[in-house]
């Protein structure tokens, strides 16, 4: 139904364009051509913008608001015997039962009250959908007649339309800001609700993380503890292991590409690095589970060391592979940005390529490389799928890479997968972790981007 409404809006907009353009063409044909301000197409576009945009916005708002408003009506219309003394979740249950009955999914014989409510719900839904089409149509007809009445030889249709276009473009650029605001506000809001249940100090400095608390009274579970230090150390340990793999390999790759490789070799190596960067992380996660973790475990068994099946070293190592292309391409850029004259000067003095690299290029490119490594760290901390599949779930406070540790992202996913009740500290804890993750990666990114930019300005 909503699809038909938008189809109708699209059709009306097209019709409005054609009408406007036809009117514009007649103005051109009728009057003295040199006195007409805008081309017929702009007359059409002006009318189309007036018809299409308000109706489209109306349709979107209607769709978003229709559901909640009908739900409110529905709850208000229920007999008081059903709603008196019921908690919010009981009412929600009731509403979803009514919706199920309305959709024809009946599991047990519903009571007459519910059947009546379901019929009301169905009816109101029908009314709302038709009302939307009727209102949209009315808005479009009014807009069409208004916009059409303004068309005249001296009317600046082009300027008017370009204004609309500029407005749309500004709106689109603001979407990025709105996204950030959405992220920050949703994280802060849910995290704040979490901190009303669990004190901030306990979250930031507590040493026990046992979030599996009972959702219902009859469930057997721990009391729950929300001290995130073990989760943070686990994240840092895995990110450290990943950087231990990625940094040397990435930087040496960049050094070879800049200083030693022939053009032909570069043409082969660069795409391979791009493939490595393009592999989805879920694939790396499966690789860690399927190949790397068993291999490390077997190797550990061979030399007599017990390795946990989901050891930090397997997850960290595979994450390192994922970050190699990231570090190598950023280091490559940084090394290439060093002015050629410095490199040539060093070589002309008789330095070997390795001396040029270590004593001239690397020091000059160091800020760029450090920035790249920081961006890599931020990636390692925020990476999810590899650790979800290959790292552990239990938060243990250890720095042993052969043990199983958990990370912030793993906890977010495990806390939010499946049933999500938005009033238990268990689910809200995920948003608190998300807030910490967002803030830390944001700081790393801002610092790294600033270093990289400063350094670029130095040589530009």
């Amino acid at each position, binding site marked *: 139904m909503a699809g038909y409404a938008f189809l109708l809006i699209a059709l009306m907009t097209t019709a409005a364009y054609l009408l406007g353009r036809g009117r514009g063409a007649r103005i051109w044909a009728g009057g003295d051509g040199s006195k007409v301000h805008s081309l017929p197409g702009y007359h059409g576009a002006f009318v189309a913008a007036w018809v299409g945009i308000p109706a489209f916005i109306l349709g979107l708002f209607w769709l978003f608001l229709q559901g909640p408003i009908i739900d409110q009506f529905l709850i208000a219309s229920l007999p008081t015997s059903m709603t008196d003394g019921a908690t919010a979740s009981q009412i929600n249950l009731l509403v979803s039962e009514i919706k199920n009955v309305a959709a024809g999914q009946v599991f047990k014989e519903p009571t007459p009250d519910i059947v009546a409510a379901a019929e009301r719900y169905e009816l109101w839904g029908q009314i709302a959908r038709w009302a939307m089409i009727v209102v949209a149509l009315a808005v479009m007809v009014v807009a069409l007649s208004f916009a059409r009445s303004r068309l005249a030889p001296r009317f600046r249709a082009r300027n008017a339309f370009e204004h609309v276009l500029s407005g749309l473009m500004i709106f*689109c650029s603001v979407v990025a800001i709105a996204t950030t605001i959405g992220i920050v506000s949703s994280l802060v809001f849910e995290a704040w609700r979490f901190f009303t249940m669990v004190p901030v100090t306990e979250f930031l400095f507590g040493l026990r993380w046992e979030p599996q608390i009972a959702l219902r009274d009859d469930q057997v579970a721990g009391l729950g503890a929300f001290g995130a230090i073990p989760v943070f150390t686990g994240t840092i340990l895995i990110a450290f292991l990943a950087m231990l793999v990625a940094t040397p390999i990435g930087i040496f790759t960049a050094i070879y590409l800049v200083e*030693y490789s022939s053009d032909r070799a570069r043409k082969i190596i660069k795409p391979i690095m791009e493939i490595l960067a393009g592999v*989805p992380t879920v694939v790396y996660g499966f690789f860690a589970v399927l190949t790397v973790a068993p291999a490390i475990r077997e190797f550990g068994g061979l030399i007599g060391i017990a390795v946990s099946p989901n050891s930090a070293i397997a997850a960290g190592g595979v994450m390192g592979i994922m970050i190699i292309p990231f570090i190598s391409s950023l280091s490559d850029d940084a090394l290439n940005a060093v002015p050629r004259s410095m490199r040539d000067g060093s070589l002309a003095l008789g330095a070997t390529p390795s001396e040029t690299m270590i004593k001239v290029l690397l020091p000059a490119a160091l800020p760029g490389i450090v920035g790249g490594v920081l961006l890599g760290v931020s*990636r390692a901390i925020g990476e999810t799928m590899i650790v979800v599949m290959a790292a552990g779930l239990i938060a243990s406070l250890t720095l042993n890479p052969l043990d199983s540790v958990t990370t912030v992202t793993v906890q977010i996913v495990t806390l939010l997968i499946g049933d999500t009740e938005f009033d238990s500290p268990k689910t809200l804890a995920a*948003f608190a972790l998300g807030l910490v993750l967002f803030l830390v990666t944001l700081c790393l990114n801002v610092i790294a981007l600033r270093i990289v930019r400063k350094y670029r300005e130095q040589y530009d």
Partner: protein
Amino acid sequence: MVDIATRPPIDWSTPAARARRKSRYAANRRLQAYGIAAISLAIGLLGILIISLIATGYSAFVTTRITVDFPISTEYVNPEDPARGNYRAVVKAGIEELFPNVTGPDERALGQLLTNNTQFMVRDAVVADPSVIGGKLSLSVPASDPFDQLNKGLVDRNTPEDERRVTDQQIQWFDQLEAEGRVSTPFNWGLFFNSDSRFPELAGLAGAIVGSFYALLVCFLVAFPIGIAAAIYLEEFAPRNRWTDLIEVNINNLAAVPSIVFGLLGLAVFLNFIGLPRSAPLVGGLVLALMTLPTIIIVTRASLKAIPPSIREAGLGIGASKHQMVMHHVLPLALPGILTGTIIGLAQALGETAPLLLIGMNAFITSPPGGILDAATALPTQVFIWADSPERGFVALTSAGILVLLGFLIIMNSIAIFLRQRLERSW
């Protein structure tokens, strides 16, 4: 006259100089060797990754089928209403005919040869062609997972009987069927045309492919116009002031925000606040669109920047308005670069998993979604679900799913490279 202290020329041929030179060259070669070692390591790891995926995944591209002649007697199936027959009994009778001398408790073990859903397959075949009622229906049915593995040689017949999932007796039956020519191993079309299932021999990617398609469609429809409009505004129209600086910094940072944070945003805003349906490709596509948006904006701005100013000046010089100049001249010239970047951004979105987990696109769904509001999975989340499944057959299936996913990524990236080479021009 000033005396200039001159040093005698250095004798490069002394043993000391020679040794120094030697060690310097050695250091140079060492650095080069480190570089080669690093690159070989990276390439080797990629090779191991791909080889291990192919080695475990190739077997899921074929399937084991057993041809059985089911007697469709009127005793079990009423010709008036073939959909409601007792197909369990039909399947049992069909197996009994193959092994007439197996009786008692062994019959159960015999029944395990065929996939669990055999009765429904027989039913569908009979409903499609009711003329077989009263006669025999020869149907090739997927073997159940343990026998699929056995046929593919993934079960070692030499392991002790209690350590494998098939008994010696069952192996003997299976070999007998094979000797009768009833076992075939065709290409596993079910991998592409079936949806998810609890049984590895029946599970396929159709639902996930359709779900990913819908999510990417939504992502493209939202991110592409908004991204281009934002980039045009920032690059061509925006005044340089604090606001536009803020937008720019914001976009750069948004590109580096961990993907799971976008999942949290989708969960809190789209599902919880606006109340869109859980697991729907619409929500997945919107979240992916927000993630892809910075990529598209950055790429579009780069392509706009690459258009030389002479084009703009020429346009303005012959009397075009600024909007006309951008829309008629700059944007069409920048379009190949924008398209290339968009396809690469969409390829990234196709491989993205974490945000989709949080909005519930990892549900167990046995039919492809009919629209953007139906519950669905996506390719990477399907891979994740299978990777978590305990049955042996799902390991091969996961690898096969990954190979299909990588295949789609390769196709998308090749299109991008093709576009770049064919359409992009240098000025």
